[in-house]
């Protein structure tokens, strides 16, 4: 994992001091809420329905036990005892008092954390594959480049007042878990004919009111040109992106209105015009220095299989299911990648208590070489667990309520805070998620249904990623009544697609039974248990599922 040197540490300390000054000016009445707004929005502080919300950055979703323990402490001391993982691998605290936020930032700085790049119209926290550095699917660990992008984009003087927020995601695995095609910029690490690794550059993806799948504007950019190429994209966007309408201000609109070809030409022209004095100096020694922090940890030499694991699976059926569902292959023999579900049946998706954070911190130190990941699907991951340790780990997770075996299953729902917390929302979303989880609570049934991604947003801004849910649910308000619009066929992976609206919206109470009929239809049409919902949908088309959705007697 990356560790701060004196430069990083000082920048974060100075940021905390700067914000303390800004909060003092606000609390003393020297500046109005209006004048304070741009300042707090540079620092992850939102004004929500009931209180200020503080969003803390977890760069590319990677953290260590000590940092997780700090979150637990913040939840206990400054909030109501819990935190919420966001769909950009960050954490939100919903009840922190403004006067306490400077202290929280000081505490975060002690463990090399901050709230920079979590709000405002700047380049936001860079996200990545939660299995980075652990999966055999990737051509190399993308995180050194995430960290380089983090540093380059932190307080960028030219790009801190963009037309709109700007999100970059990076992956190096064919199976895209970082949803890079629905980001403003997606970077997919590729190998060229000469065997060098670089980046396929995808631009203009996004969700919200007008969802777009990003387009590849450059199949390969060499590593030593990446930051200069990103600067060229950012400058074209900053100069020409629309500023007349907040809903048309994302880069996806610029790309689609300009046309991908013309947009690419503008970027290339800008890139070619850069003079030597404009290039970013990124010495190879610096790339090496940062890369070193992500060297594989001290894995033990172990056999491929584990007798301890096999014996425990034979003895404990629930454990065997959890291993099958939540543990994925590791690049190192004898290890597995463990997803800790933060979607227990009937609780708000992505919430964790202070006690659960403390437990996770301890378990990461004991079982996962002190590494934790947060996923954009609002779960946690212990990336490096010995197969021999899985049963012990499972039992401890289970006592903490963290062993739900539903990773990628129907109850592993992405859900925005909705009308319960958010002042943008038109409808509630958490209660809908809870109803669905309760309807499909039976884990054996979920396991039989297999991979199925439900994503729920309480308004058109799509924070709950409904456009890319295999089944998407969008809450809308019609004359004071909440309705839920269902979409089919969205996906956020390497075959990214925007879901299609099935028909008229449903009342909240009708959603679970309607989806039960859809699931029954899927079970009837699937060619075998191995054909996932999304694959069956692609093969037979949407019609049978639409019929099932509206077939209420």
């Amino acid at each position: 994992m990356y560790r701060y040197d004196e430069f990083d540490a000082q920048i974060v300390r100075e940021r905390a001091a700067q914000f303390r000054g800004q909060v003092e000016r606000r609390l003393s009445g020297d500046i109005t809420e209006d004048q304070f707004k741009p300042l707090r929005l540079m620092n992850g502080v939102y004004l929500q329905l009931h209180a200020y919300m503080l969003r803390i950055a977890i760069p590319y979703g990677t953290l260590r036990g000590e940092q997780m323990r700090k979150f637990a402490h913040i939840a206990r001391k400054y909030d109501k005892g819990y935190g919420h993982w966001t769909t950009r691998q960050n954490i939100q605290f919903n009840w922190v008092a403004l006067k306490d936020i400077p202290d929280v930032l000081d505490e975060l700085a002690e463990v090399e954390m901050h709230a920079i790049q979590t709000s405002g119209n700047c380049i936001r926290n860079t996200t990545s594959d939660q299995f980075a550095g652990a999966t055999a699917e990737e051509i190399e660990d993308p995180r050194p480049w995430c960290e380089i992008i983090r540093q380059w984009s932190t307080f960028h003087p030219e790009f801190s007042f963009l037309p709109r927020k700007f999100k970059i995601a990076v992956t190096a695995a064919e199976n895209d878990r970082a949803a890079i095609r629905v980001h403003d910029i997606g970077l997919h690490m590729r190998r060229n004919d000469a065997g060098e690794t670089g980046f396929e550059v995808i631009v203009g993806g996004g969700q919200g009111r007008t969802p777009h799948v990003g387009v590849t504007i450059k199949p390969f950019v060499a590593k030593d040109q990446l930051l200069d190429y990103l600067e060229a994209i950012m400058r074209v966007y900053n100069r020409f992106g629309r500023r007349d309408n907040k809903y048309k201000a994302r880069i996806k609109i610029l790309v689609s209105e300009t046309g991908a070809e013309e947009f690419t030409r503008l970027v290339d022209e800008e890139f070619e015009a850069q003079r030597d004095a404009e290039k970013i100096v990124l010495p190879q020694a610096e790339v090496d220095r940062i890369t070193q922090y992500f060297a594989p940890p001290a894995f033990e030499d172990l056999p491929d299989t584990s007798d301890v694991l096999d014996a425990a699976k034979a003895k404990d059926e629930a454990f065997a299911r959890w291993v099958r569902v939540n543990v994925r292959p590791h690049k190192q023999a004898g290890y597995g990648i463990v997803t800790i579900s933060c979607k227990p049946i009937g609780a708000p998706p992505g919430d964790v208590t202070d006690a659960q954070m403390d437990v996770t911190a301890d378990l990461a130190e004991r079982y996962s070489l002190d590494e934790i990941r947060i996923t954009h699907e609002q779960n946690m991951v212990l990336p490096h667990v010995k197969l021999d340790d899985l049963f012990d780990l499972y039992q401890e997770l289970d006592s903490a309520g963290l062993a739900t075996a539903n990773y990628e299953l129907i109850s592993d729902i992405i859900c925005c805070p909705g009308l319960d917390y958010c002042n943008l929302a038109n409808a509630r979303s958490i209660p809908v998620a809870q109803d669905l989880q309760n309807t499909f609570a039976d884990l054996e049934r979920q396991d039989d249904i297999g991979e199925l991604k439900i994503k729920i947003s309480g308004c058109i801004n799509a924070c709950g990623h409904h456009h890319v849910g295999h089944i998407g649910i969008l809450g809308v308000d019609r004359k004071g009544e909440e309705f839920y619009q269902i979409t089919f066929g969205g996906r956020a992976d390497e075959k990214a697609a925007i879901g299609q609206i099935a028909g008229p919206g449903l009342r909240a109470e009708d959603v679970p039974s309607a989806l039960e009929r859809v699931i029954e239809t899927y079970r009837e049409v699937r060619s075998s248990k191995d054909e996932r919902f999304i694959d069956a949908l692609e093969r037979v088309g949407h019609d049978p599922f639409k019929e099932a959705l509206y077939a209420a007697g």
Partner: protein
Amino acid sequence: MPLVKNGEVTANPHGEVLTLEPFLEMAAADPKDAVIVRLMPDDCPLQLEPFLDQLEVVEISFPRYADGRGYSQAQLLRRRLGYKGEIRAVGDVLRDQLLFMLRSGFDAFELGREDAAQAFAAASREYSHFYQPAADGESGVFARRHS
């Protein structure tokens, strides 16, 4: 409105300032008077290239603080064109954006507050290091770590 330059409040000697189009017309007719111009966010600063040697002041206008196009205009003037004269921020210029402006190549600021000089001094001292190279001559932390 107080004009802060080199950290001090100074007199603002210029009267009416032409925007880009009238400026280009005037400069074509009588180039020796072409010493000051105001860019609006839509304007392309590269059009000033023929007049760089005689221009004394380029005003960059911020009708709203949130419109960040002026930062790119300043960077292009300084780093692409090598412009050495004054770049002045005018309009909705806030204390907490001065540092971004300084780094982007601005060196003069119309600040609508009585304590303009103190506010400028405080804002410009808030950080000791910057990650990116920019128009302020800072090479950036990537390079400084290895120098």
